[in-house]
Every structure is written in structure tokens, then in C-alpha cells.
């Protein structure tokens, strides 16, 4: 009797709380179809939905549509995800499976770099890229992913690799495989769930990495979705309808990936946080 009652109470609390949490998002969806006058109201659905917010917002300017910025961002993301996943796997194999001098020291340093604020290194990094005339290009945004920039992901995959039984390595070794063979044919395929997690987080985090984008990309032609949104914000009179519509479109890729790979997601965060 009491167990049932407490279950009901839990449900009520959870429903109320979920509602409060998700309400701004629901309102956002409705507001993207509203005329400006109705945006002061907390109601979700507009009296007459203005689909032109999406159509006009997508057109952006006479020269570029939002499609252009999406394409820019997606191409950058392809490189980031490939770089992030492949290098994290390679480096994690080194730390997780191979014995070498100073391994412990390097691994501690790797963990320390996770805690290092971006702002500490940003000035000399900018100067470095500037010296090579690489500012206003995607190189400063992509390159770190190919150089084990995701120290966090290396850590995640090391934990993952430690969970793979060593018997498999031994068996491959007896069959004559080298360390490289063991990595390519034994460990890499077994890492797949971990790699998916790394790929997802790399995608979402670099999509949202406004700081680096605003710093390195200066010509509109090369703008990412985030920078295009910022141009809307910087206008003297903000076109809220277009802006809210396009900002909603801008979170679609992350949202779709989230719903497709929800399981990996939650497991990924849990593993990084706990198995240390």
C-alpha cells in the first residue's frame, strides 16, 4: 500500500520536474513560429504559425543561405570526428596495453591536461597559427583533434581497453601478430562502442565550441552555424522569429545523434566519470 503510494508520489514529482526542465525547449519550438508580439506570452503554440520564419531565416543574406554554413560546419565535423576517434584509439592503445619507459608519468600528464583551462594556452596557440598564416582557416579547429587533443577521450578509451581480456592479445601473438596487428585486428574492432561514444562527444563539443570558432574564423564565407547565428544577434534590431527558428535548426544535428545513440551517450558519461 505505502510502496504504491510512494511510487505515485515519485511519478508526480518526476512529471512536474521534467515539465519544468523541458518547458523552455517546448516554448522555443513554438516561439520559432511566432510573430514577435506573441513572444512575450508563455504559451507554446502561436495563433497562426509563421512558417516563413524558417524560410526567410534560412535565406540569411543575399549571398549565403544557412545551407552554406551547415555545409561548412559538417565538413569540419567530419574531419574532427575522424581525427578524434582515430588518434584517441591509437594513443589509448599505447597507454592501455604497451609497456614503455615513463608511461606512468606521461599518463599523469595526460590526465592533468584534461583539467587545463583553454584560456591558458590560447594566446600562444593563436600566435603560432598566425605565424603559419593559418588563422581564418579550419586548421586551428581541426588539427588539435588529430594530435590527441581529446585527452578526455584517450582516458575514456584507456578504461575501455583495460576491460578487454588480455587473452585475446596473447592468442593473436601466438598466431604471429605484431603489436600493430593486435591493435588493428583485435583491439580496434572491439573498441567500437567506445569509439561511437568518442565520435558523438567530439561532434557535439566541437559543434558548440564557439570560443575557438569566433577566434579563428573571420571571413563570412568560412563561418560555422554558430558564427552565423551570432551575426543575427549582432544586428541592431534582432529578428527574433528568424533567429529562434534558425537556432532551433542549429541544434538538430546534436539532437538527432542523441536520440539515435542514447545508450552510448549515458554509458559514455558514466564510464568517464567513474571507472577511474
Amino acid at each position: 500500500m505505502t510502496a504504491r503510494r510512494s511510487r505515485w508520489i515519485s511519478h508526480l514529482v518526476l512529471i512536474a520536474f521534467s515539465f519544468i526542465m523541458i518547458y523552455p525547449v517546448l516554448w522555443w519550438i513554438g516561439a520559432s513560429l511566432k510573430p514577435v508580439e506573441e513572444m512575450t506570452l508563455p504559451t507554446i503554440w502561436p495563433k497562426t504559425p509563421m512558417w516563413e520564419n524558417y524560410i526567410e531565416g534560412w535565406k540569411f543574406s543575399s549571398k549565403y543561405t544557412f545551407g552554406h554554413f551547415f555545409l561548412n560546419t559538417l565538413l569540419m565535423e567530419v574531419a574532427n570526428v575522424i581525427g578524434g576517434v582515430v588518434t584517441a584509439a591509437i594513443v589509448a592503445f599505447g597507454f592501455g596495453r604497451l609497456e614503455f619507459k615513463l608511461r606512468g608519468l606521461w599518463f599523469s600528464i595526460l590526465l592533468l591536461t584534461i583539467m587545463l583551462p583553454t584560456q591558458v594556452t590560447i594566446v600562444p596557440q593563436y600566435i603560432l597559427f598566425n605565424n603559419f598564416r593559418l588563422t581564418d582557416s579550419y586548421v586551428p579547429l581541426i588539427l588539435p583533434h588529430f594530435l590527441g587533443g581529446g585527452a578526455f577521450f584517450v582516458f575514456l578509451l584507456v578504461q575501455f581497453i583495460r576491460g578487454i581480456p588480455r587473452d585475446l592479445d596473447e592468442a593473436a601473438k601466438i598466431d604471429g601478430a605484431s603489436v600493430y596487428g593486435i591493435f588493428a585486428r583485435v583491439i580496434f574492432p572491439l573498441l567500437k562502442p567506445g569509439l561511437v561514444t568518442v565520435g558523438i562527444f567530439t561532434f557535439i563539443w566541437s559543434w558548440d565550441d564557439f570560443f575557438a570558432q569566433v577566434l579563428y574564423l573571420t571571413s563570412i564565407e568560412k563561418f560555422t552555424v554558430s558564427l552565423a547565428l551570432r551575426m543575427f544577434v549582432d544586428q541592431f534590431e534582432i529578428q527574433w522569429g528568424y533567429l529562434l527558428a534558425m537556432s532551433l535548426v542549429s541544434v538538430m544535428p546534436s539532437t538527432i545523434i542523441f536520440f539515435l545513440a542514447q545508450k552510448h551517450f549515458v554509458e559514455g558519461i558514466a564510464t568517464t566519470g567513474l571507472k577511474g
Partner: protein
Amino acid sequence: MQTRRLNSTQLAGYIFISPWLLGFFLLTLWPIGQSFYLSFTDYSLLSEPVWKGLENYERIFGQDETFVKSLKITFTYVFVSVPFRLVFSLLVAMLLVKSLRGMNLYRTLIYFPSLVGGSIAVSVLWRNMFGVDGYINAILAWFGIEGRGWISHPDTALWTLVVLNIWQFGSMMVIFLAGLKQIPQELYEAAAVDGARKMQQFFRITLPMLSPVMLFNIILGVINAFQMFTPAYIVTPRPGGPMQSTYVYAVFLYEKAFKHFQMGYASALAWILLVIVALLTALNFFASRYWVFYESGSERGGR
């Protein structure tokens, strides 16, 4: 033979970690050293750095009111939002750990804001919601509270950013959730047999067992909050908000370096940030000796 094989795995080890090692030297260690050097110079990117000794630091600590102000704002932001997020995410995690029907839906709804929350898009949403004409004011009016432009008023602007940060407690929550799942149920059963009430169970079992996870969340929460940039740049009008009331450290440093091109000065700011974050982290680790509970030996060895 034995030594040759050892050498080849030695080499293989370094080959495998070489991408990270290269990145570490090129993009982390060298920049840290370089910014240390630059912090003693005047450098505008256009001409060679000019050695100035301690002048940058003297100016920062002696005369720069913006430095003091932005540090205060950042500390307020960190020390208000992190504790709120911790308490919030722990309480919600305790609700979400129960096995109820529809739990996946609840988890998704509660986690979703954290998924999109770091994006500029949500900062845009926040700017609209908490503006003079935002719907938050309409809701407050139901309760007889007079509305105002929350983001354009210097007294409240920072608090809208704190609320935004608390709204995204999802990743902390998921980590707590995983921690809660690892607490053996027998502990609670044994406690219940001994007549411990729910409150006692929480303080005697749940909290101590979760304390390592709590430490992890505190340390990363503090470090992340210290770097807050996008909301201060987008939510509040003009980077830094009304009367610079949301001029957090990251925005301050960014503008010094890339708007005023005072690279030397900005490097000194970067080093001060490094020292502050390192001290806070060390303090956390030191304090953790007194409150973090680690299970003894045998249980931990497995991993």
C-alpha cells in the same frame, strides 16, 4: 633477445602515443612556456615583444579595476552555480535511480537541456526569455512579481547566467546516477534491519559511498565554470553585459588579447588563471582527505 624485444615494444609504445605527445609539446607545453615569457613583455602581434619585467603583473594587481571586478564576478558565478548544480543533480539522480515505468522518458527530458545547453543557440533563447519582453516576466506577473529586463539590468544579469548553468546539470547528474548504481543494496538492507531511517541511510551510506564521485564533480565543475564564455558573450547584450556585470574572466582575457591585442597582458592574465585553477584544485584534493571515503583494498583492486 630479451632486450631487443623489450626495445621494440618500448618503441611501439612511443609510436602509439606520438600523436598525443606531439600535440602536448606543440599545443600545450610550448604555449604554456611561451605565455610565461610573453607575460613579462609588451606584445601586439605586429612588432617584436618588448621586455617589460613585472610591469604587466604590477598593473594587473595594482591598478586594473577591471581585473578585480571580473575576478569577483567569476568567483560569484563559480561559487553559486557549482554548489547549486551539485545539490540539484544529486537529488534528481536519487529520484531517477529508482526503477519506475517510463524512467527512460524522464531521464531524456531532464538530460536534454544539458545536451544543447552549451550551444550559442540556447544562449540566444535565454536572451529572449529573460529580456524585458520575455515570457518569464509574463509568468512572474501571475504571481504579482513585477517584471524587468533581467539580462539588461546589472544587478540581475549574472543571475540569469547562473540559472542557465544550473539548468544544465545533466552531466553531473549522469555521473551521480552511475555512482548510485554501484552502491551495494545490501548496505541499505542491513541498515534498514538495524532500524536506520531514510535520512540516516542517506547521510551514513549514500553520501560516503558517493564521495569520490562528488569530488570528481566538484573539481571538474569548478574548472568548467571558471572558463564560462559563450553565455557571457551572447546572453547579455554586448560582451560582458550591462555595466560589465557579466564580464567574466574568460571574456576579459579574450578581449584583452584579441580585441585590444595586448598579448603580453593577456598572457599574464592566463598565468594568473592557471595559478588560481591549480590552487583551487589542489585545495579540493587536500580537503578531500577529510571527507572523501574510499573503500579499503580488496574492493578497489579489480578495475
